[in-house]
């Protein structure tokens, strides 16, 4: 039997990815950290560390706690600022075919608009609006947890944004569907989810939280079922493409999200344990498609049949 060609490429609102696997923001640095371990050309895209208008130092350590099948983090958006990213990081990333997604976060809507404007003139491929970071005191998640908030920020940023605009949703809401619809109605080109789930871990010997910030965001295998359910819910109410993430570490995990309706996936925490996780997920998806004789990823996206 001759092996037929499998087309892994996907088009997310004009963002053309060679394959549907993207390094998730905050877990893939600026790509260069992984270049020793893998060929960056082999993954569809990289969503870079969350950028803010000015450089940020982030939260006090400890910033991480291990929990059953997961981790809590409270990095607090440490990053060099959007200008330094444009000057120092884009030239390196551009040496590869992988697509560059700029993940942005801010204290005010004006911050977001200003970043979207600067990045629209920069050599990147899409902007991911992070309105879901649980680790900073002001702004950010406050815009993402109500329909009015998400609608206002998406609408305003869209005016300044000349690249595909992905809005990244928080799972820390009662009904993620209505938030997703509000983002779509306000002009989002795609939705990504989930960001981390707010959590806490306590050192019982010190009678204090492990994280200096007391609370942090849960990620890793522990969150996967929640993420799959939310991706399914969102994909069934919006028409724009959905990018799924939360606990993906294998091709099988990614396929779950794609069947639930995700056109692409992001891999986060798994990169810490296995620096080649993204490439392994690409291979795993390919093997699955081969096994069921599919020739394109579109043959599985949203093809879940409910019982």
């Amino acid at each position: 039997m001759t092996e037929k060609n499998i087309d892994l490429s996907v088009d997310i609102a004009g963002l053309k990815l060679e394959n549907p696997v993207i390094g998730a923001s905050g877990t893939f640095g600026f790509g260069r950290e992984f270049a020793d371990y893998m060929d960056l050309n082999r993954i569809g895209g990289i969503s870079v560390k969350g950028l803010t208008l000015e450089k940020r130092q982030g939260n006090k350590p400890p910033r991480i706690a291990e929990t059953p099948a997961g981790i809590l983090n409270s990095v607090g958006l440490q990053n060099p600022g959007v200008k330094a990213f444009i000057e120092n990081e884009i030239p390196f990333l551009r040496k590869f075919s992988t697509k560059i997604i700029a993940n942005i976060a801010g204290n005010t809507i004006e911050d977001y608009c200003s970043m979207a404007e600067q990045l629209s003139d920069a050599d990147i491929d899409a902007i991911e609006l992070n309105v879901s970071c649980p680790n900073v005191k002001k702004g950010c998640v406050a815009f993402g947890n109500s329909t009015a908030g998400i609608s206002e920020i998406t609408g305003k940023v869209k005016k300044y944004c000349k690249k595909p605009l992905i809005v990244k949703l928080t799972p820390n809401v009662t009904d993620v569907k209505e938030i997703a619809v509000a983002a779509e109605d306000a002009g989002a080109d795609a939705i990504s989810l989930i960001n981390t789930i707010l959590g806490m871990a306590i050192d019982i010997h010190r009678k204090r939280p492990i994280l200096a910030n007391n609370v942090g965001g849960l990620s890793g295998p522990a969150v996967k079922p929640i993420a799959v359910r939310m991706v399914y819910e969102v994909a069934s109410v919006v028409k724009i493409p959905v990018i799924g993430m939360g606990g993906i570490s294998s091709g099988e995990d990614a396929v779950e999200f794609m069947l639930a309706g995700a056109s692409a996936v992001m891999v986060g925490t798994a990169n810490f344990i296995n620096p080649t996780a993204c490439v392994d997920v690409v291979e795993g998806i390919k093997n699955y498609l081969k096994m069921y004789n599919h020739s394109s990823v579109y043959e599985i996206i949203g093809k879940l049949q409910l019982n």
Partner: protein
Amino acid sequence: MSRVLNERIESIEKIAKSIYRMTVKSEYISANARPGQFANVKCSEGINALLRRPISICDVDKDRGTFDIVFQIKGIGTEYLSQKRVGSEVDLIGPLGSPFHISEEYKRIAVVGGGIGIFPLLYLLKEMKEADKSAFLGFRSSDYVVMTEEFESASDRLSISTDDGSMGYKGIITDLLAEDIADRGFDIIYTCGPMPMIRKVKDMAQKAGIKCQVSLEQRMGCGIGACLVCACKTGKPDNWEYSHVCKDGPVFWSDEVVLDD
């Protein structure tokens, strides 16, 4: 450059209460590891103890192509690691981090280690072949005293203290260092161990005008500089920024780190 490796365990031995020494066959690590660097070790299979654990390279045998790690059981990860069997494989990334600064200009050196912080200092002593070497090792009690013969033969003189006086000097190791700083003088002091000890050594070195390198610990996510969780302050007390222990460290010059939290 560091690599993801699956290497064979040549031996694993309990050397003291809850402390294990593991010898791992690895041409790559033995050829490339510098003193002060660490390996990020996967301790479990599956999704329990999800993260890798940072463990210092304690010794290297270049001829045999092996390296040693020594670890104390603290929680679930080190517990798993202690149950590994000879002949099985260990999944690790290494060598990682910035090594100790070694120079022929350092004629008289001191290493000051406390608890699990002593382990990276053995390889350092072995690599500084020409210098006159004083080693100061502090332990909680005689139950935890390990590897004294090796430290003895890798140094010119060895001082030991225990908190409870069950072996060596009773008290903290920096008391012994203080005497020798006054009597002998050093060109550089290297230290690794609990934060109060590191702070004290840093202060003593600064007052005496001696160069000093410290090796820091912090909880890690990736170990390769990508996740930014392993923050530590660098700069001056009134003008600092967060650097990262896994990539910028674990070894820093004592005057470039701010040790206030």
